[in-house]
């Protein structure tokens, strides 16, 4: 296939977007490419985190709980306190990794949303570029800072309770907040003047098959996520919370009665319950996030410089992966590692589809920048 064939495909796409706001190193281009890169980075970090930190950390928390019950049986209150101090450290390790993963992906979504809104943000192009860069710097700095909190701690910190990693993470958050605030002011100015840029509607008027599948499929995924969340909240949440309390109480009571096998069994049941809660929450959060991602990507299909057939393949791949990951995460409780492997395949499909679309957008920008381009 030659470059001119690609040009023909693009030129024939109904509702083709104007390149006015997708100019070389423009704010919209930076936010689209930066947003997809953040989502990809966050997803890959999530996969690494799940394999190397989440599962080993859960085992360490279980072992520390067993230590706590042994300390109770041995009438050693300091030992019990020390075991809970260790659990606090493990929870911090887990929490900061989850936060880094979640913030990176969420900032990616906000970057894509801001890219969509750029044509109706009433500020100068120079300022748009500056705040797009500021947003992307902040969106990178915050998750990196949060990730490092567990390792840097309070080393060389001028403050007694907050370390350098937290300070840089907060600075990243401030950059993101400032950029969003300016974009909101720009939106407000546009709404007041109602002088909408005609090119603003261009990406939104995309009617290709891939865009429609991503839009309807994404909304369906969000709805399924909501149905699952409502079911979980109604049928399981209160029962699990009560069981959580019962098991903690059983650990303490049985250990105090020197029934260590009984206490260890309660620890094991407690671990199982935490796993059940975690897979339900992960399935609920992931299916909704993937749905939002699919809806956002529907708007950017005019910028994906690939043959229509390939655009359809990547749209379907993304929807299938988005459905497979949460479904098999839920089935991990019954099928164990087999379902975990299939969930990872689902995540990989989403990453591949996202990467393919990123390449398509990169090719589109390359075509725009090429000397003599008609776009």
């Amino acid at each position, binding site marked *: 296939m030659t470059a001119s064939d690609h040009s023909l495909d693009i030129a024939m796409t109904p509702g083709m977007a104007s390149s006015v706001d997708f100019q070389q190193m423009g704010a919209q281009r930076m936010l689209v490419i930066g947003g997809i890169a953040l989502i990809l980075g966050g997803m890959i970090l999530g996969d690494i985190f799940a394999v190397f930190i989440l599962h080993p950390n859960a085992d360490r928390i279980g072992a520390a709980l067993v230590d*706590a*019950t042994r*300390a*109770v049986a*041995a*009438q*050693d*209150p*300091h*030992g*019990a*306190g020390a*075991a*809970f*101090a260790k659990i*606090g450290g493990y929870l911090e390790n887990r929490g900061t990794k989850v936060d880094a993963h979640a913030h990176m992906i969420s900032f990616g*979504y*906000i970057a894509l*949303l801001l890219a*969509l*809104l750029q044509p109706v943000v009433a500020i100068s192009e120079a300022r748009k570029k500056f705040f797009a860069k500021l947003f992307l710097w902040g969106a990178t700095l915050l998750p990196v800072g949060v990730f490092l909190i567990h390792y840097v701690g309070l080393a060389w910190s001028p403050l007694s309770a907050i370390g350098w990693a937290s300070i840089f993470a907060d600075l990243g958050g401030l950059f993101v907040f400032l950029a969003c605030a300016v974009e*909101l002011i720009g*939106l407000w100015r546009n*709404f007041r003047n109602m002088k*909408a840029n005609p090119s603003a509607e261009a990406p*939104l008027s995309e009617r290709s098959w891939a865009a*429609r599948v991503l*839009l*309807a499929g994404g*909304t*369906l995924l*969000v*709805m399924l996520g*909501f*149905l699952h*969340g*409502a079911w979980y*909240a*109604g049928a399981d949440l209160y029962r699990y*919370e009560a069981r*959580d*309390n019962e098991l*903690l*109480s059983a*650990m*303490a*009571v049985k*250990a*105090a009665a020197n029934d260590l096998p009984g206490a260890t069994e309660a620890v094991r049941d407690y671990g199982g319950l935490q796993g059940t809660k975690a897979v339900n929450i992960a399935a609920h959060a992931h299916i*909704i996030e993937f749905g*939002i991602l699919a*809806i*956002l990507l*529907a*708007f950017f299909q005019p910028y994906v410089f690939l043959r229509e057939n390939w655009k359809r393949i990547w749209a379907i791949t993304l929807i299938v992966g988005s459905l497979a990951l949460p479904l098999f995460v839920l089935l991990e409780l019954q099928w164990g590692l087999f379902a975990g492997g299939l969930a990872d395949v689902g995540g990989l499909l989403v990453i591949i589809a996202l990467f393919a679309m990123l390449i398509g957008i990169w090719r589109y920008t390359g075509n725009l920048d090429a000397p003599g381009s008609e776009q």
Partner: protein
Amino acid sequence: MTAPRKLLIIGGLALAAWGMAYGIFYAVFIEHQTLDGLGGALASGFMRAAERRMTESQAALADAASRSFVYVRQVDAHGHWIGLGLLLVILGISFDRVGFQEKGRLVLALMLLAGSALFPLGVLLETWNRGPGPQAIAVLGSALVIFGLFGTVWGFARGD
């Protein structure tokens, strides 16, 4: 801009801003105290058990359960307000493609906005009142969001 789009975009932005403002207030004034209290109550429950002061141990573990109940709902309300706000803005951008008359789209937009505001509010109210009232608000809110999304999927599938 049509009324349903304006309602979803402005309403979604307002909801997300409200969720972020609540999150900042919560992080500064409530979260650290709640987490410290939760960790302290759990450790205390086991330390008192090691001292064979079982009544105090059970009271500390019940306190931890209560703090955990409140913490989960405060984080959920914050996260759902922002997430639903973002969803409303994204749906608002493309809402003219929902294949219904403007009146139908307006009803769907109102359902989505009202549900997105009410559902986290009901969840948050459960931290003050564990009776059926707040749960009913949360159920009503989530039902409005689910039916609103169902209508939106149907509308997208019909096309414009």
